[in-house]
Protein backbone atom coordinates (compact mmCIF):
# COMPACT_ATOMS: atom_id res chain seq x y z
CA UNK A 1 0.00 0.00 0.00
CA UNK A 2 1.30 3.31 -0.96
CA UNK A 3 2.05 5.11 2.28
CA UNK A 4 2.25 1.93 4.32
CA UNK A 5 5.79 0.81 5.03
CA UNK A 6 5.93 -2.99 5.15
CA UNK A 7 6.76 -4.53 8.49
CA UNK A 8 10.37 -5.40 9.03
CA UNK A 9 11.34 -8.67 10.66
CA UNK A 10 11.38 -8.26 14.45
CA UNK A 11 9.43 -5.02 14.30
CA UNK A 12 7.67 -4.39 17.58
CA UNK A 13 4.81 -1.93 17.96
CA UNK A 14 5.69 0.79 20.47
CA UNK A 15 3.57 1.41 23.56
CA UNK A 16 1.91 4.80 23.97
CA UNK A 17 0.70 6.58 27.08
CA UNK A 18 -1.23 9.24 25.16
CA UNK A 19 0.36 11.99 27.26
CA UNK A 20 -0.12 15.47 25.77
CA UNK A 21 3.31 17.00 26.33
CA UNK A 22 3.07 19.75 23.77
CA UNK A 23 0.22 22.09 22.92
CA UNK A 24 -3.19 20.91 24.14
CA UNK A 25 -5.74 19.56 21.69
CA UNK A 26 -8.81 21.52 20.52
CA UNK A 27 -11.81 20.22 18.62
CA UNK A 28 -12.83 22.32 15.63
CA UNK A 29 -16.42 22.98 14.46
CA UNK A 30 -17.14 24.83 11.22
CA UNK A 31 -20.35 26.47 10.02
CA UNK A 32 -20.31 25.96 6.25
CA UNK A 33 -22.84 28.69 5.56
CA UNK A 34 -25.40 30.77 7.38
CA UNK A 35 -28.39 28.72 8.43
CA UNK A 36 -26.41 25.54 9.08
CA UNK A 37 -25.09 24.06 12.32
CA UNK A 38 -21.44 24.14 13.22
CA UNK A 39 -20.16 20.66 12.38
CA UNK A 40 -17.16 18.87 13.85
CA UNK A 41 -14.36 18.72 11.28
CA UNK A 42 -11.27 17.67 13.22
CA UNK A 43 -8.80 19.04 15.71
CA UNK A 44 -5.75 21.27 16.08
CA UNK A 45 -3.00 21.71 18.65
CA UNK A 46 -2.51 25.19 20.06
CA UNK A 47 -1.40 26.79 23.30
CA UNK A 48 -4.52 28.87 23.90
CA UNK A 49 -8.00 29.56 22.55
CA UNK A 50 -6.93 32.55 20.45
CA UNK A 51 -4.14 30.60 18.72
CA UNK A 52 -6.41 27.59 18.34
CA UNK A 53 -9.01 29.71 16.56
CA UNK A 54 -6.40 31.04 14.15
CA UNK A 55 -4.95 27.58 13.56
CA UNK A 56 -8.44 26.22 12.90
CA UNK A 57 -9.02 28.97 10.35
CA UNK A 58 -5.73 28.27 8.61
CA UNK A 59 -6.13 24.50 8.61
CA UNK A 60 -9.82 23.87 8.06
CA UNK A 61 -11.03 26.75 5.88
CA UNK A 62 -8.35 26.77 3.16
CA UNK A 63 -10.99 26.21 0.50
CA UNK A 64 -13.65 28.59 1.80
CA UNK A 65 -15.32 25.77 3.73
CA UNK A 66 -16.81 28.01 6.39
CA UNK A 67 -18.19 31.33 7.56
CA UNK A 68 -17.74 30.77 11.28
CA UNK A 69 -15.88 28.40 13.55
CA UNK A 70 -15.72 27.20 17.14
CA UNK A 71 -12.86 25.61 18.98
CA UNK A 72 -13.42 23.67 22.19
CA UNK A 73 -10.65 22.28 24.39
CA UNK A 74 -10.87 18.52 23.80
CA UNK A 75 -10.74 17.86 27.53
CA UNK A 76 -14.05 19.70 27.85
CA UNK A 77 -15.94 17.31 25.60
CA UNK A 78 -18.08 14.93 27.63
CA UNK A 79 -19.38 11.89 25.84
CA UNK A 80 -21.89 9.14 26.45
CA UNK A 81 -20.61 5.70 27.39
CA UNK A 82 -20.01 3.75 24.18
CA UNK A 83 -20.80 0.47 25.97
CA UNK A 84 -24.22 1.80 26.90
CA UNK A 85 -25.15 2.24 23.29
CA UNK A 86 -28.04 -0.22 23.33
CA UNK A 87 -29.33 1.05 26.65
CA UNK A 88 -29.35 4.69 25.70
CA UNK A 89 -30.07 4.68 22.02
CA UNK A 90 -32.83 2.19 21.28
CA UNK A 91 -35.83 2.86 19.15
CA UNK A 92 -38.69 1.19 21.00
CA UNK A 93 -41.38 3.75 20.30
CA UNK A 94 -42.51 3.29 16.71
CA UNK A 95 -45.51 5.60 17.25
CA UNK A 96 -43.08 8.53 17.21
CA UNK A 97 -42.54 7.95 13.49
CA UNK A 98 -44.97 9.00 10.75
CA UNK A 99 -44.86 5.58 9.07
CA UNK A 100 -46.61 4.09 12.15
CA UNK A 101 -49.91 5.58 11.03
CA UNK A 102 -52.05 4.28 8.21
CA UNK A 103 -53.87 6.94 6.27
CA UNK A 104 -56.20 5.95 3.41
CA UNK A 105 -54.64 6.47 0.02
CA UNK A 106 -57.52 8.69 -1.14
CA UNK A 107 -56.41 11.29 1.39
CA UNK A 108 -53.15 11.75 -0.46
CA UNK A 109 -50.01 13.20 1.02
CA UNK A 110 -50.18 14.07 4.71
Amino acid at each position, binding site marked *: *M*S*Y*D*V*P*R*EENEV*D*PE*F*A*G*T*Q*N*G*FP*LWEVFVRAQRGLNHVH*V*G*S*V*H*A*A*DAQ*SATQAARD*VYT*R*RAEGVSLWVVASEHIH*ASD*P*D*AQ*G*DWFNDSKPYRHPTFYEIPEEIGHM
Partner: protein
Amino acid sequence: MTRTEVDPQARFDEIIEAGEKVEPRDWMPEAYRKTMIRQIAQHAHSEVIGQQPEGNWITRAPSLARKAILIAKVQDEAGHGLYLYSAAETLGVSRHELNEMLHSGRQKYSSIFNYPTLSWADIGAIGWLVDGAAITNQVMLTRTSYGPYSRAMIRICKEESFHQRQGYEIMLALVNGTEQQKAIAQDAFERWWWPSLAMFGPPDDQSTHTEQSQAWGIKLETNDELRQKFVDMTVPQADYLGLTVPDPELRYDEDSGHYHFGEIDWDDFWQVVKGNGPCNRERIAHKTKAWDDGAWVREAALAHAAKQANNSKGAEK
Protein backbone atom coordinates in the same frame (compact mmCIF):
# COMPACT_ATOMS: atom_id res chain seq x y z
CA MET B 1 -24.93 -3.52 36.48
CA THR B 2 -28.35 -3.52 34.96
CA ARG B 3 -27.03 -3.12 31.45
CA THR B 4 -27.16 -6.07 29.09
CA GLU B 5 -23.70 -7.59 29.01
CA VAL B 6 -22.43 -8.01 25.47
CA ASP B 7 -19.20 -9.75 24.63
CA PRO B 8 -17.09 -6.84 23.30
CA GLN B 9 -15.26 -9.00 20.77
CA ALA B 10 -18.58 -10.21 19.42
CA ARG B 11 -19.86 -6.64 19.20
CA PHE B 12 -16.66 -5.57 17.37
CA ASP B 13 -16.92 -8.49 14.93
CA GLU B 14 -20.54 -7.58 14.32
CA ILE B 15 -19.60 -4.01 13.40
CA ILE B 16 -16.89 -5.15 10.98
CA GLU B 17 -19.16 -7.82 9.52
CA ALA B 18 -21.93 -5.29 8.89
CA GLY B 19 -19.45 -2.95 7.18
CA GLU B 20 -20.13 -0.31 9.83
CA LYS B 21 -17.40 1.95 11.19
CA VAL B 22 -15.49 1.38 14.39
CA GLU B 23 -15.49 4.61 16.42
CA PRO B 24 -12.87 5.90 18.87
CA ARG B 25 -14.38 4.88 22.18
CA ASP B 26 -15.60 1.48 21.03
CA TRP B 27 -13.92 -1.58 22.44
CA MET B 28 -11.46 -2.93 19.88
CA PRO B 29 -8.89 -5.73 19.89
CA GLU B 30 -5.47 -4.49 21.01
CA ALA B 31 -3.92 -5.74 17.77
CA TYR B 32 -6.46 -3.75 15.74
CA ARG B 33 -5.68 -0.61 17.73
CA LYS B 34 -1.94 -1.08 17.27
CA THR B 35 -2.25 -1.78 13.58
CA MET B 36 -4.40 1.30 13.07
CA ILE B 37 -2.02 3.51 15.06
CA ARG B 38 0.91 2.20 13.04
CA GLN B 39 -0.80 2.69 9.70
CA ILE B 40 -2.31 6.11 10.37
CA ALA B 41 0.90 7.40 11.97
CA GLN B 42 2.99 6.22 9.03
CA HIS B 43 0.56 7.84 6.68
CA ALA B 44 0.72 11.11 8.67
CA HIS B 45 4.52 11.02 8.85
CA SER B 46 4.61 10.44 5.08
CA GLU B 47 2.54 13.54 4.41
CA VAL B 48 4.64 15.65 6.75
CA ILE B 49 7.99 14.47 5.35
CA GLY B 50 6.43 14.75 1.89
CA GLN B 51 6.56 18.54 2.29
CA GLN B 52 10.33 18.39 1.86
CA PRO B 53 11.04 17.02 -1.62
CA GLU B 54 8.46 19.32 -3.21
CA GLY B 55 9.13 22.23 -0.87
CA ASN B 56 12.66 22.04 -2.27
CA TRP B 57 11.38 23.76 -5.43
CA ILE B 58 9.07 26.44 -3.99
CA THR B 59 11.63 29.24 -4.26
CA ARG B 60 12.74 28.09 -7.72
CA ALA B 61 9.42 27.43 -9.47
CA PRO B 62 9.73 28.70 -13.05
CA SER B 63 6.56 30.83 -13.06
CA LEU B 64 4.45 32.58 -10.44
CA ALA B 65 1.43 30.44 -11.27
CA ARG B 66 3.48 27.26 -10.70
CA LYS B 67 4.88 28.73 -7.50
CA ALA B 68 1.39 29.36 -6.13
CA ILE B 69 0.20 25.88 -7.07
CA LEU B 70 3.25 24.30 -5.50
CA ILE B 71 2.89 26.21 -2.22
CA ALA B 72 -0.78 25.22 -2.08
CA LYS B 73 0.09 21.60 -2.73
CA VAL B 74 2.86 21.42 -0.15
CA GLN B 75 0.50 23.12 2.29
CA ASP B 76 -2.06 20.41 1.58
CA GLU B 77 0.53 17.77 2.52
CA ALA B 78 0.99 19.47 5.88
CA GLY B 79 -2.78 19.71 6.29
CA HIS B 80 -3.23 16.05 5.47
CA GLY B 81 -0.55 15.11 7.95
CA LEU B 82 -2.46 17.12 10.51
CA TYR B 83 -5.84 15.47 9.76
CA LEU B 84 -4.18 12.07 10.06
CA TYR B 85 -2.43 12.87 13.35
CA SER B 86 -5.86 13.97 14.60
CA ALA B 87 -7.29 10.61 13.58
CA ALA B 88 -4.42 8.75 15.25
CA GLU B 89 -4.93 10.74 18.43
CA THR B 90 -8.41 9.28 18.82
CA LEU B 91 -6.70 5.93 19.43
CA GLY B 92 -4.94 7.05 22.60
CA VAL B 93 -1.62 8.40 21.35
CA SER B 94 -0.54 12.03 21.36
CA ARG B 95 0.97 13.90 18.44
CA HIS B 96 3.95 14.58 20.65
CA GLU B 97 4.57 10.85 21.05
CA LEU B 98 4.18 10.26 17.33
CA ASN B 99 6.64 13.06 16.62
CA GLU B 100 9.19 11.39 18.85
CA MET B 101 8.62 8.09 17.09
CA LEU B 102 9.30 9.74 13.73
CA HIS B 103 12.39 11.56 14.94
CA SER B 104 13.88 8.48 16.57
CA GLY B 105 13.13 6.34 13.51
CA ARG B 106 10.93 3.91 15.45
CA GLN B 107 8.08 4.77 13.13
CA LYS B 108 8.66 5.18 9.44
CA TYR B 109 7.27 7.18 6.55
CA SER B 110 6.86 6.14 2.96
CA SER B 111 10.20 5.40 1.30
CA ILE B 112 9.16 7.34 -1.76
CA PHE B 113 10.13 10.56 0.02
CA ASN B 114 13.69 9.38 0.40
CA TYR B 115 14.43 10.14 -3.24
CA PRO B 116 15.74 13.58 -4.22
CA THR B 117 14.02 16.17 -6.45
CA LEU B 118 16.78 17.06 -8.90
CA SER B 119 14.97 19.09 -11.53
CA TRP B 120 11.68 20.92 -12.00
CA ALA B 121 10.39 17.89 -13.88
CA ASP B 122 10.53 15.95 -10.61
CA ILE B 123 7.71 18.16 -9.35
CA GLY B 124 5.64 17.06 -12.33
CA ALA B 125 6.62 13.42 -11.93
CA ILE B 126 5.80 13.39 -8.22
CA GLY B 127 2.36 14.84 -8.77
CA TRP B 128 1.58 12.55 -11.64
CA LEU B 129 3.15 9.29 -10.43
CA VAL B 130 3.49 9.50 -6.64
CA ASP B 131 0.19 11.23 -6.05
CA GLY B 132 -1.32 8.97 -8.68
CA ALA B 133 -0.13 5.92 -6.81
CA ALA B 134 -1.24 7.39 -3.51
CA ILE B 135 -4.72 8.22 -4.72
CA THR B 136 -5.20 4.67 -6.02
CA ASN B 137 -4.65 3.53 -2.47
CA GLN B 138 -6.36 6.38 -0.71
CA VAL B 139 -9.65 6.03 -2.53
CA MET B 140 -9.76 2.51 -1.11
CA LEU B 141 -8.97 3.85 2.35
CA THR B 142 -12.04 6.10 2.40
CA ARG B 143 -13.92 2.82 2.99
CA THR B 144 -11.62 1.60 5.75
CA SER B 145 -13.27 0.33 8.95
CA TYR B 146 -11.93 2.92 11.41
CA GLY B 147 -14.29 5.91 11.35
CA PRO B 148 -11.86 8.80 12.01
CA TYR B 149 -9.37 7.41 9.46
CA SER B 150 -12.08 6.96 6.87
CA ARG B 151 -13.36 10.51 7.43
CA ALA B 152 -9.84 11.95 7.18
CA MET B 153 -9.33 10.06 3.93
CA ILE B 154 -12.55 11.40 2.44
CA ARG B 155 -11.41 14.93 3.14
CA ILE B 156 -7.91 14.19 1.86
CA CYS B 157 -9.10 12.58 -1.37
CA LYS B 158 -11.34 15.53 -2.08
CA GLU B 159 -8.49 17.96 -1.60
CA GLU B 160 -5.92 15.85 -3.44
CA SER B 161 -7.88 15.54 -6.61
CA PHE B 162 -5.94 18.47 -8.06
CA HIS B 163 -2.51 17.12 -7.12
CA GLN B 164 -2.19 14.49 -9.79
CA ARG B 165 -3.69 16.72 -12.48
CA GLN B 166 -1.28 19.58 -11.77
CA GLY B 167 1.62 17.11 -11.98
CA TYR B 168 0.48 15.77 -15.32
CA GLU B 169 -0.01 19.30 -16.60
CA ILE B 170 3.60 20.15 -15.67
CA MET B 171 4.77 17.09 -17.63
CA LEU B 172 2.60 18.10 -20.60
CA ALA B 173 4.15 21.56 -20.70
CA LEU B 174 7.63 20.03 -20.57
CA VAL B 175 7.16 17.46 -23.33
CA ASN B 176 5.74 20.18 -25.57
CA GLY B 177 8.63 22.48 -24.77
CA THR B 178 12.30 22.81 -25.64
CA GLU B 179 14.68 19.88 -26.12
CA GLN B 180 16.06 20.52 -22.67
CA GLN B 181 12.57 20.47 -21.14
CA LYS B 182 11.80 17.18 -22.88
CA ALA B 183 15.04 15.73 -21.60
CA ILE B 184 14.34 16.57 -17.96
CA ALA B 185 10.82 15.14 -18.31
CA GLN B 186 12.15 11.78 -19.52
CA ASP B 187 14.90 11.77 -16.90
CA ALA B 188 12.46 12.46 -14.06
CA PHE B 189 10.03 9.84 -15.37
CA GLU B 190 12.78 7.23 -15.39
CA ARG B 191 13.83 8.01 -11.84
CA TRP B 192 10.29 8.01 -10.36
CA TRP B 193 8.74 5.12 -12.27
CA TRP B 194 10.13 2.19 -10.29
CA PRO B 195 9.92 3.80 -6.85
CA SER B 196 6.27 4.61 -7.61
CA LEU B 197 5.53 0.97 -8.41
CA ALA B 198 7.35 -0.09 -5.25
CA MET B 199 5.10 2.24 -3.21
CA PHE B 200 2.39 -0.42 -3.32
CA GLY B 201 4.55 -2.65 -1.15
CA PRO B 202 5.97 -6.17 -1.51
CA PRO B 203 4.21 -8.69 -3.76
CA ASP B 204 1.22 -10.43 -2.20
CA ASP B 205 3.05 -13.74 -1.79
CA GLN B 206 5.67 -12.01 0.35
CA SER B 207 3.46 -9.72 2.31
CA THR B 208 2.45 -10.72 5.77
CA HIS B 209 -0.56 -9.34 7.60
CA THR B 210 -2.57 -8.82 4.41
CA GLU B 211 -5.16 -11.39 5.46
CA GLN B 212 -5.69 -9.97 8.94
CA SER B 213 -5.90 -6.43 7.55
CA GLN B 214 -8.47 -7.52 5.01
CA ALA B 215 -10.54 -9.29 7.65
CA TRP B 216 -10.58 -6.11 9.72
CA GLY B 217 -11.66 -4.03 6.79
CA ILE B 218 -8.46 -1.98 7.05
CA LYS B 219 -7.19 -3.00 3.66
CA LEU B 220 -9.62 -3.84 0.92
CA GLU B 221 -7.40 -4.62 -2.06
CA THR B 222 -3.99 -6.29 -2.19
CA ASN B 223 -0.67 -4.69 -3.10
CA ASP B 224 -0.47 -6.46 -6.44
CA GLU B 225 -4.05 -5.62 -7.38
CA LEU B 226 -3.49 -1.94 -6.68
CA ARG B 227 -0.12 -1.93 -8.45
CA GLN B 228 -1.62 -3.50 -11.56
CA LYS B 229 -4.44 -0.98 -11.54
CA PHE B 230 -1.87 1.82 -11.35
CA VAL B 231 0.27 0.47 -14.22
CA ASP B 232 -2.78 -0.04 -16.42
CA MET B 233 -3.85 3.52 -15.78
CA THR B 234 -0.42 5.14 -16.11
CA VAL B 235 1.16 3.55 -19.19
CA PRO B 236 -1.34 5.11 -21.63
CA GLN B 237 -0.77 8.46 -19.90
CA ALA B 238 2.99 8.08 -20.47
CA ASP B 239 2.32 7.17 -24.11
CA TYR B 240 0.31 10.32 -24.54
CA LEU B 241 3.24 12.35 -23.23
CA GLY B 242 5.61 10.50 -25.57
CA LEU B 243 7.70 9.29 -22.65
CA THR B 244 9.43 5.92 -22.68
CA VAL B 245 8.67 3.61 -19.76
CA PRO B 246 12.03 2.42 -18.43
CA ASP B 247 11.06 -1.26 -18.55
CA PRO B 248 12.11 -3.49 -21.47
CA GLU B 249 9.62 -6.13 -20.36
CA LEU B 250 6.61 -3.86 -20.51
CA ARG B 251 3.96 -5.07 -22.96
CA TYR B 252 0.20 -5.08 -23.23
CA ASP B 253 -1.32 -8.51 -22.74
CA GLU B 254 -4.38 -8.84 -24.97
CA ASP B 255 -5.73 -11.87 -23.13
CA SER B 256 -5.80 -10.42 -19.65
CA GLY B 257 -6.35 -6.82 -20.74
CA HIS B 258 -3.49 -5.78 -18.44
CA TYR B 259 0.06 -4.56 -18.89
CA HIS B 260 2.78 -7.04 -18.04
CA PHE B 261 5.73 -5.35 -16.37
CA GLY B 262 9.21 -6.32 -15.19
CA GLU B 263 10.46 -7.28 -11.75
CA ILE B 264 10.83 -4.52 -9.15
CA ASP B 265 14.24 -4.37 -7.45
CA TRP B 266 13.09 -5.37 -3.96
CA ASP B 267 16.62 -5.37 -2.55
CA ASP B 268 16.86 -1.67 -3.33
CA PHE B 269 13.39 -1.16 -1.85
CA TRP B 270 14.35 -2.80 1.44
CA GLN B 271 17.57 -0.84 1.59
CA VAL B 272 15.59 2.39 1.47
CA VAL B 273 13.09 1.10 4.06
CA LYS B 274 15.97 0.22 6.37
CA GLY B 275 17.32 3.77 6.17
CA ASN B 276 19.82 3.58 3.31
CA GLY B 277 18.03 5.55 0.64
CA PRO B 278 19.48 8.63 -1.02
CA CYS B 279 17.76 11.10 1.35
CA ASN B 280 16.74 9.21 4.53
CA ARG B 281 19.20 11.01 6.76
CA GLU B 282 18.56 14.46 5.30
CA ARG B 283 14.79 14.16 5.68
CA ILE B 284 14.97 13.28 9.37
CA ALA B 285 17.73 15.82 10.02
CA HIS B 286 15.55 18.54 8.44
CA LYS B 287 12.51 17.50 10.45
CA THR B 288 14.30 17.30 13.79
CA LYS B 289 16.11 20.60 13.19
CA ALA B 290 12.82 22.36 12.49
CA TRP B 291 11.36 20.80 15.64
CA ASP B 292 14.35 21.65 17.85
CA ASP B 293 14.62 25.20 16.49
CA GLY B 294 10.95 25.70 17.35
CA ALA B 295 11.24 24.49 20.95
CA TRP B 296 11.57 27.99 22.40
CA VAL B 297 8.49 29.14 20.48
CA ARG B 298 6.36 26.28 21.78
CA GLU B 299 7.60 26.81 25.33
CA ALA B 300 6.81 30.52 25.07
CA ALA B 301 3.30 29.85 23.81
CA LEU B 302 2.59 27.47 26.68
CA ALA B 303 4.07 29.91 29.20
CA HIS B 304 1.95 32.76 27.82
CA ALA B 305 -1.18 30.59 27.93
CA ALA B 306 -0.48 29.66 31.54
CA LYS B 307 -0.03 33.33 32.49
CA GLN B 308 -3.28 34.23 30.75
CA ALA B 309 -5.13 31.46 32.56
CA ASN B 310 -3.71 32.65 35.89
CA ASN B 311 -4.65 36.25 35.16
CA SER B 312 -8.23 35.38 34.34
CA LYS B 313 -8.43 33.27 37.53
CA GLY B 314 -7.15 36.24 39.45
CA ALA B 315 -9.75 38.46 37.85
CA GLU B 316 -12.58 36.13 38.88
CA LYS B 317 -11.69 36.31 42.57
